[in-house]
């Protein structure tokens, strides 16, 4: 990636986060669409021998030869398609490779984001130019191709996880999801449990089903669930209408610009015979009414870049793509095939108003290239999936957010940057968006932490990433949610935006053992069979013991209250007290930490006992009890707060989410 290392403070220029040579012993396993191994991101110059513990392989296919594909950087490449082929029929080798080769681009993008080597003079058609690099440039990469044109099947994912753990990966990165299901039915959750037991951190994307609530994937507590935010970079495009009004959108268009004079401008909904012609679906535009004009299309249903292709095919000269309420003001840039720009809902409505009021509307679009230093940033992406956690409401998810909007990283040689069949351009890099892009940022950062602290458990690394994440801008104002323009909540950003420099030295961590997670499974009422399916253990819960989800030593707090159903006063008449016990482990220098709590609502009170913890040595553990006292509220109410431990140098922060159901 370009820019995100600077944005995250880990660029070598900063000198804050020098990568230790021990990172070369860390292997990041990426389950995705495979890899385009010829990309410079996988150059192994300067890498020593493959770690002796590595048991992986470079599987061959017609177009994938181990001798040339794998090296000391890309140390493993496997593919898994038995499940896919059993359901969908044989892989169509005229369309995709029956090998680890990535014909899609997604897998090359994610693996190079996590751990790609330095590549100078990187850009997409001149946009986002700079030196591209992954988060952990010295880590090794192993790819496991599990996604094919028809999807990613759980039998293949489980087989890949089985192999990856056997092979000896240290971090697993999965930018995929399958909706919401119980952990014992979820192949990713099951695979991640075993990986966690072996000391492997598993980072997964939260999903792109935002801004709707309870839209998360990959919410098992042993997984690190990553949402997406923007960085301080933009690709502006400037629109001028015939009435003199100017608007700004975003675009990655790179080609012949529009003529200097303004062009005729039409709304797609008015140049179609189709009821949904405003969406610029294939074959819905009337060429005679579109030819040579700029067309305004509404976002939704079909791919954004496909809308551009539809306008181009109909003879249009350019396109303005308007967000609807579903996306609000979020602007995602695309490398359109014709001069085109995306605009937010408000701008789109203003432009539509002009189109409907003007008899002979005209417009122009000028492309502004790359702009950095955009503020505020980060801002939560509208598409980023949101809590509450629908499977286990008492575990707060997502865990944190990371850069996931307009991310430049490596790309396949088999498809153009739009991914459309008609796109014959080939680029070494592409700029795309999604929680798929934020997840490998965290995977790579976890690899850096693993290299610096080889003895830390996956839970300790996750805790370090979470408790040092920031939830406000430098001026103190809370991180914003682009879908509302308002402050993001812990249901949106979890602990906040990852801050790897702080995560390197978190001071204290909330550690969790595999046995603790078994207690969690007992707490959520799993039967011995279900626990066995998740954990492979013959575990039975102790009938004499009271298990509670709040016993899990999680680095954040979710406190679901039940709304009082009795009492003349209704809501507000009943007070409930919920207690959580947590244990902190000192991973820094000896010191005394004091607790500070905040709660946004007056009907919630948070107390911590003891309010001061003094650690005398590294590895020492001390426990505290936090009590949440709340007056009953109407069902559907939510409120937020935070608990921060600090010794004056370290800040160990946990978000708190309260809900009433």
């Amino acid at each position, binding site marked *: 990636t370009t820019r995100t290392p600077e944005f995250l403070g880990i660029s070598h220029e900063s000198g804050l986060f020098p990568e230790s040579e021990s990172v070369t012993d860390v292997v990041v396993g990426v389950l*995705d*669409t495979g890899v385009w191994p010829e990309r410079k991101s996988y150059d192994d110059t300067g890498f020593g021998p493959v770690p002796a513990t590595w048991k992986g392989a470079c599987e061959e296919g017609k177009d994938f030869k181990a001798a040339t594909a794998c090296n000391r950087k890309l140390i493993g490449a496997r593919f898994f398609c*038995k*499940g896919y082929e*059993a*359901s969908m029929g044989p892989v169509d080798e005229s369309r995709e490779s029956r090998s680890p080769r990535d014909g899609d681009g*997604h897998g090359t993008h994610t693996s190079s984001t996590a751990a790609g080597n330095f590549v100078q003079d990187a850009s997409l058609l001149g946009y986002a130019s700079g030196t591209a690099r992954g988060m952990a440039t010295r880590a090794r990469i192993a790819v496991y191709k599990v*996604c094919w044109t028809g*999807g*990613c*099947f*759980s*039998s293949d*994912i*489980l*087989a890949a*996880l*089985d*192999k990856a*753990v*056997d092979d000896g990966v240290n971090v697993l990165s999965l*930018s*995929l*999801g*399958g*909706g919401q*299901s119980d952990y*014992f*039915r*979820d*192949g*990713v959750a*099951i*695979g991640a*449990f*075993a*990986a966690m037991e072996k000391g492997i951190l598993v980072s997964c*994307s*939260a*999903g*792109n089903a935002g801004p709707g609530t309870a839209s998360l*994937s990959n919410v098992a507590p042993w997984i690190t669930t990553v949402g997406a935010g923007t960085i301080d970079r933009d690709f502006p495009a400037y629109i001028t209408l015939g009435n003199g009004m100017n608007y700004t959108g975003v675009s990655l268009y790179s080609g012949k610009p529009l003529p200097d004079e303004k062009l005729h401008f039409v709304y797609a909904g008015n140049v179609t015979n189709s009821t949904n012609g405003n969406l610029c679906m294939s074959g819905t535009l009337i060429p005679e009414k579109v030819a040579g004009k700029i067309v305004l299309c509404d976002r939704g249903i079909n791919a954004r870049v496909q809308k551009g292709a539809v306008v181009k095919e109909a003879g249009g000269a350019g396109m303005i793509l308007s967000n609807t309420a579903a996306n609000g003001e979020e602007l995602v840039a695309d490398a359109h095939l014709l001069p085109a720009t995306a605009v937010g809902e408000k701008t789109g409505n203003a432009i539509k108003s002009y189109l409907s009021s003007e008899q002979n509307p005209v417009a122009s679009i000028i492309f502004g290239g790359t702009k950095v230093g955009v503020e505020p940033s980060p801002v939560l992406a509208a598409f980023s999936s949101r809590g509450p956690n629908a499977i286990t409401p008492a575990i707060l998810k997502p865990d944190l957010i990371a850069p996931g909007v307009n991310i430049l990283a490596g790309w396949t040689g088999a498809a153009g940057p739009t991914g459309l069949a008609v796109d014959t351009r080939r680029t070494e890099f592409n700029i795309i968006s*999604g*929680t*798929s892009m934020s*997840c490998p940022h965290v995977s790579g950062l976890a690899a850096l932490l693993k290299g610096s602290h080889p003895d830390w458990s996956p839970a300790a690394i996750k805790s370090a990433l979470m408790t040092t994440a920031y939830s406000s801008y430098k001026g103190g104002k809370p991180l914003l949610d682009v879908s509302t323009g308002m402050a993001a909540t812990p249901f949106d950003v979890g602990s906040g935006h990852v801050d790897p420099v702080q995560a390197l030295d978190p001071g204290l961590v909330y550690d969790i053992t595999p046995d603790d997670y078994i207690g969690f499974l007992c707490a959520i009422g799993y039967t011995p*069979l*279900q626990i*066995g*399916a998740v954990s*492979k253990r*013959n575990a039975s819960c102790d009938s004499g013991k009271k298990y509670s989800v709040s016993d899990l030593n999680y680095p954040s707090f979710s406190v679901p209250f039940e709304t009082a159903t009795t009492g003349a006063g209704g809501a507000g008449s009943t007070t409930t007290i919920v207690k959580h016990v947590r244990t902190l482990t000192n991973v820094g220098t000896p010191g005394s930490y004091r607790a500070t709590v905040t709660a946004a609502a007056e009907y919630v009170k948070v107390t911590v006992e003891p309010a001061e913890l003094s650690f005398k040595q590294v590895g020492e553990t001390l426990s505290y009890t936090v009590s949440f006292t709340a007056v009953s509220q109407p069902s559907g109410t939510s409120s937020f707060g935070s608990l921060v431990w600090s010794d004056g140098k370290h800040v160990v922060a946990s978000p708190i989410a309260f809900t009433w159901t």
Partner: protein
Amino acid sequence: GKTSKKTYIVHVSKSQMPAEFVEHSHWYDASLQAVSDSAEMLYTYDTVTHGFSARLTPAEAEALAARAGVLAVVPETRYHLH
């Protein structure tokens, strides 16, 4: 339909393998053959879970789930890129 096959993940308790088997894969094969004449096994799993995946009819999956040592028989899920 009742006769159409789809993929299931079969989770087993490895420690409950009957004594007459030496290899787990033999136990898996025998379990599968006991419920189906034609079921094909896709993968066996031995690290992140114990068990196998196979193409089964719903009735075969149900019969397999009732066998000793089987923890769960879960229909395959399709995941998508984010």
